[in-house]
């Protein structure tokens, strides 16, 4: 599904943040990427989804066998790559429901599927809301405008559920959430799991992994994958902290 080889990337001021990341995520798997602040977790998410401001200097990324990095951000999205934002962006005056329908229809068009009319869309929306236990009031508000932190994260998961991506990348979606919101996030991820999908969970803490059991856990430190292991690695980190990995830089 996703194959990252020797990935190096710089940020706008020229500093190199990723210093040779290798990662192989197969279809059907959930991988957790953990690491201290400033280790390059968000940079990795940004580079994979095409966020402006990063320059890839070395390495390559294959998504479903073809080069991901040459695609524009919207092309990546329509090809099935989804990013749940750490800080979801407000778009005043744009109705949440309208936004989601535009996004969904753009993706469906790409796949050669018919666009959903308002009725079909509403039906699909209601099913997902129920699944995730989210209130309908969220739909009629401006995209993320005046949302609480928890509502913003729930909205990200709701979008993910509607868009049904092949590769979902969640950038610290669990940070700052109360237990109810955390469970919504977990429910959304678990509902998405399937033999032809993959999830990359970027997180600082272990607690989300109590609800979403990962197939693999990686520690990103100093711009490299410093250690990989099974789900038990997350528990080990919880006990010993990241200090053991030092700063690989």
């Amino acid at each position, binding site marked *: 599904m996703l194959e990252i080889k020797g990935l190096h990337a710089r940020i706008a001021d020229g500093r190199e943040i990723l210093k040779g990341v290798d990662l192989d995520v197969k279809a059907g798997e959930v991988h957790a990427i953990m690491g201290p602040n400033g280790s390059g977790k968000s940079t990795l998410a940004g580079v994979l*989804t*095409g*966020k*402006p*401001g990063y320059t890839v200097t070395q390495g390559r990324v294959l998504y479903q066998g073809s080069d991901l990095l040459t695609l*524009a*951000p*919207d092309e*990546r*999205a*329509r090809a099935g790559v*989804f*990013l749940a*934002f750490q800080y*979801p*962006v*407000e*778009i*005043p*005056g*744009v109705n949440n429901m309208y*936004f*989601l329908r*535009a*996004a*969904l229809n*753009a*993706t469906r068009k*790409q796949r050669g599927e018919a666009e959903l009319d308002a009725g079909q869309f509403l039906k699909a929306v209601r099913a997902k809301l129920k699944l995730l236990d989210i209130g309908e009031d969220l739909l009629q508000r*401006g*995209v993320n405008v005046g949302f609480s932190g928890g509502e913003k994260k729930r909205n990200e998961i709701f*979008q993910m559920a509607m*868009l049904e991506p092949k590769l979902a990348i969640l950038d610290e979606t669990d940070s700052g959430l109360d237990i109810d919101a955390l469970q919504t996030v977990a429910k959304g991820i678990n509902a998405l799991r399937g033999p032809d999908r993959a999830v990359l969970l970027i997180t600082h803490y272990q607690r989300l992994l109590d609800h979403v059991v990962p197939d693999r856990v990686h520690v990103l430190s100093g711009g490299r994958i410093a250690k990989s292991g099974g789900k038990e690695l997350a528990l080990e980190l919880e006990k010993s902290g990241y200090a053991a990995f030092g700063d690989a830089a």
Partner: protein
Amino acid sequence: MSSDTSSDVSKLGALREGYKFGFVTEIDSDSAPPGLNDDTVRYISAKKREPQWLLDWRLEAFHHWQKMENPHWAKLRVAPIDYQAATYYSAPKRANAPKSLDEVDPEILQTYEKLGIPLHERAALAGVAVDAVFDSVSVATTFKKTLGDLGIIFCSFGEAVREHPELVRKYLGSVVPQGDNFFAALNSAVFSDGSFVYVPKGLRCPMELSTYFRINAAKTGQFERTLIIADQGSYVSYLEGCTAPQRDENQLHAAVVELIALEDAQIKYSTVQNWYPGDAEGKGGIYNFVTKRGACKGARSKISWTQVETGSAITWKYPSCILEGDDSVGEFYSVAITNNFQQADTGTKMIHIGKNTRSTIISKGISAGKGQNTYRGLVRMQPKAQNARNYTQCDSLLIGDKCGAHTVPYIETRNPTARVEHEATTSKISDDQLFYCQSRGLSMEDSLSLIVNGFCKAVLKELPMEFAVEAQKLLAVSLEGSVG
């Protein structure tokens, strides 16, 4: 006096893409000789077989204009205009006005076809009566009979002068006097045609009245005159849309619109302006110098202006309300976009004269490319405007770092009980917003259009439905190529 526009067609060669309506219709024109003097004014008046009083009125305006100067206070860079080089009258060459659509020059109908104007049965289906103005003469008026049966007058200005001289004489210039400003004086002297609406007492006009203006013949300044009178307790909604073919030299458009709302009457006036804005290098484009003003003469009357200004090289326009009647209401909702080298200096004037008068101003300015966008608004509370209120909100949105947004509010209060509120914001479309939309699968253009439409929502929702859809498309087209 006919000029052959076919040579212009060959001169233009392959029409540049980008401006969809940049085509020139080949028809023989009946034009006044270039230049402007008393004889030009007489020529126009004679052509239109006008009564003596109107000729005198025009000449009076012309003599005012001769003593006036081009205004310089707006934040605009305007190349000098040679008023003696322009042609002040151009009419499709046909001896008699057509009686029905079948008599209309097929070339003209095709032009409208390309513009997507619902003139034929489409007009009936859409429930829109179109008084289509081609250059200077109205070529077709639909739904006239339906409206006529109700007592509503909707016709060309010229026809109104002939058929309803008492109404025209009473109200012409009553809101915008001949000597009001340079461009209004010019219009008053040489206006060629336009639209006239009268809605009788207590009647609610059952359909949106719509006029499309179109500048066609080369070097023809277009001077439209619109007069709308809503008698006591009546209601009318009027739509004005504009497109113009592509030209290399700048064309002047100086219209005057006068609205009169008597006691308990309401007028809603909506504009989508899409004149040719000039090319990406700032060459060509329409100069749009328009005077629009409404008088709420009667108690509890209301006038609403809604405008979406996406076109023109230069826009100079301040649709205003004079709130004379007690408890009268004025509203101004505006979206103005400037891209490439476009300049807009637009806003409104709310003059509160009566007691308990209220006004609302919502202005959304969008600047992209090297566009310069200025909101200029005056709110004046006269001494007798007890408890008058105004609320103004001016928001500017910048796309890129070479454009400009300016807000120039003038507030004059001569009554201690009046309240004026002014809010202004300036924001930039952030990379984060664009990336967020793109990361959900929307293209860069769609993302931009979505964000801009969201920004303009408070204004767009004031437009009648069919206009709102057109306006949203125009916003997207106007901003093409402004990012990425």
